[in-house]
């Protein structure tokens, strides 16, 4: 059974207008997506800014209102209860944020930051709590004497690891990682990604890994899904997407990745041009009225593509 099952999720934001502030229109941030994540799996969610990928993460955590659709966690429908403060679901799902500078309270010590979820859900003595925090710090490779420091005393990579320690404090089953390394330098990014992988292996956590960086996603995720215009355009295994991209948007996304080999520069530029021309030409083939994404159709057992 899947750990998390999302069925036909829709998140629409109202647009208010006029003197009376009535709802004049809706912004369809997420418009009918379905997916499942099983235990210990990493699902990559790739898309450009504005595609709705972060909204999906927020909806799962109850941080944005769900307009329609269902979210099942461990087989139970939690669509309505997700916004309740002490729901047990809240304990099992955690989040790692992109901006390490604003996601840690600057006036709290590391000890308090990491212990906050523990204090909300578990009754621990001071000594027990301290022991747990030290263990958590050790998991992310920080020494216990960091517990009494404040966030400003750490570098970006260390801060993100504090964020990771906080997220795993309650031994969640699922962590939503919203662009966890986008703000970090490559060498630091490598540290955080390695830690995320180790933790997954040790604790068997499932990740919903949201990112725009196809390099990072390829490294982290066995399964991925590409999002465009609030809908999924293609889902499949890593091999399906990178070797047999079918939807024109996926092809365009992959063609846009700059190659690390300067000798292939001309070849890549030519390929990019070709795919872009195709993207403009085949708009009607892949999109309804130039924008709407079709429903996913199976190409193989694992590979689904949105097409007519």
């Amino acid at each position, binding site marked *: 059974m899947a750990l998390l099952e999302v069925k036909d999720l829709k998140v629409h934001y109202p647009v208010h207008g006029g003197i009376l502030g009535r709802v004049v229109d809706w912004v369809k941030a997420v418009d009918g997506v379905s997916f499942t994540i099983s235990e210990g799996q990493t699902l990559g969610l790739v898309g*450009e*800014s504005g595609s709705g990928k972060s909204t999906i993460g927020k909806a799962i955590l109850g941080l944005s209102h769900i307009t329609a659709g269902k979210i099942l966690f461990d087989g139970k429908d939690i669509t309505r209860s997700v916004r309740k403060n002490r729901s047990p679901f809240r304990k099992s799902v955690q989040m790692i944020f992109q901006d390490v500078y604003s996601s840690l309270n600057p006036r709290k010590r590391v000890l308090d930051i990491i212990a906050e979820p523990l204090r909300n859900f578990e009754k621990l003595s001071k000594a027990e709590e301290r022991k747990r925090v030290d263990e958590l710090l050790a998991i992310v*490779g*920080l020494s216990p004497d960091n517990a009494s420091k404040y966030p400003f005393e750490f*570098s*970006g*990579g*260390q801060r993100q690891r504090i964020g990771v320690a906080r997220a795993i404090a309650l031994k969640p089953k699922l962590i939503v990682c919203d662009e966890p390394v986008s703000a970090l*330098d*490559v*060498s*630091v*990014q*490598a*540290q955080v*990604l*390695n830690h995320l*992988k180790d933790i997954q292996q040790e604790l068997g956590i499932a990740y919903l890994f949201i990112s*725009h*960086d*196809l*390099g*990072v*996603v*390829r*490294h*982290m995720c066995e399964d991925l899904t590409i999002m465009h215009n609030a809908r999924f355009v293609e889902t499949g295994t*890593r091999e399906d997407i*990178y070797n047999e991209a079918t939807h024109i948007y996926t092809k*365009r*996304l*992959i*063609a*846009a*990745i*700059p*190659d*690390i*080999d*300067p*000798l292939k*520069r001309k070849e*890549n*530029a030519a390929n*990019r*041009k070709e795919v872009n021309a195709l993207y403009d030409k085949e708009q009607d083939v892949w999109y309804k009225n130039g924008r709407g994404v079709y429903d996913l159709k199976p190409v193989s057992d694992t590979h689904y593509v949105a097409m007519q």
Partner: protein
Amino acid sequence: MSNDTLLQIKDLRVSFRIEGQYYAAVDGVNLEIKKDEVFALVGESGCGKSAMALSISRLHNENYTQCAGEVLYEGKDLLSMTPAEMNNVRGGKIGMIFQDPLTAMNPLMRIGAQIEETLTYHTNLSRAEKKARALELLERVGMVNPALTYDQFPHELSGGMRQRSVIAIAIAAKPDLIIADEPTTALDVTIQAQILDLLDELRTGTGGSMILITHDLAVVADIADRVAVMYAGQIVETATVYDLFANPLHPYTRSLLHSMPSALTEEARLHTIQGIVPTLKNLPRTGCRFAERIPWHNASLHEENPTYHEVTPGHFVLCTCYKTFALGGGTHGTA
């Protein structure tokens, strides 16, 4: 100075004041930018690459910044110019493209007016000529509807269109040198590809040099001719883009290349660099600055006063520690 040199940087030192004391963020950089080349400056945050770019165009805050050394542009030292002379250079001789196009532009001015502003300062065109030139520039940077964009405000444009507008402003007065500070970092990957293609196309069209500052080695591989890798205020390696990627020498360059997760290949684990980048106050000022990140290497491998070694023609590397090729040995250590 040879004939094809456009910009020569001699022993540049840029220091910032911290608690009353000045600390050098750029510490003795020597560089030559040739005519019609794209020169990439690569490094992680805090290595001094942006501080260097700002000091070339003298945009740093003089209240807490000191610059020493020489920046010779066509033989004239930019650092000793008067503010009025400098105003002619900025925009006229050197164009700038910044990371965040929304903050780089005036939110209250229409795009057309912002392009014309540059033309007003650096050319003698009449109003009608300026408008014609602005429209031409907007078309040149790939705007679908130049006449519409001309009358729009920055907030009405998408990220890619904004960066195109900033590029139009930067190239308006036909400068010989463009300094692009992380021009694609804030953009999506498809937009990034478009902007890189545009920069490349502009260069082949009109010539001119570009200093490209970035942390993304893939962007460097895509567009640069020559590369300098910066670490802790110093340039640790300079080479042509082909030499650098085929034969990276300095341990820092090699580590950077290894720690990138690639979209084209998979590895089980990523390479990490031990320790953290030292803060400006704690920079080691003597010896090899990278030594503390590779502690398993014997001190005798480093030079006491690191110098540049020309390994193959045009490929320079700082310190002798590049001679040890082993990447292993505790490289997966954590901070």
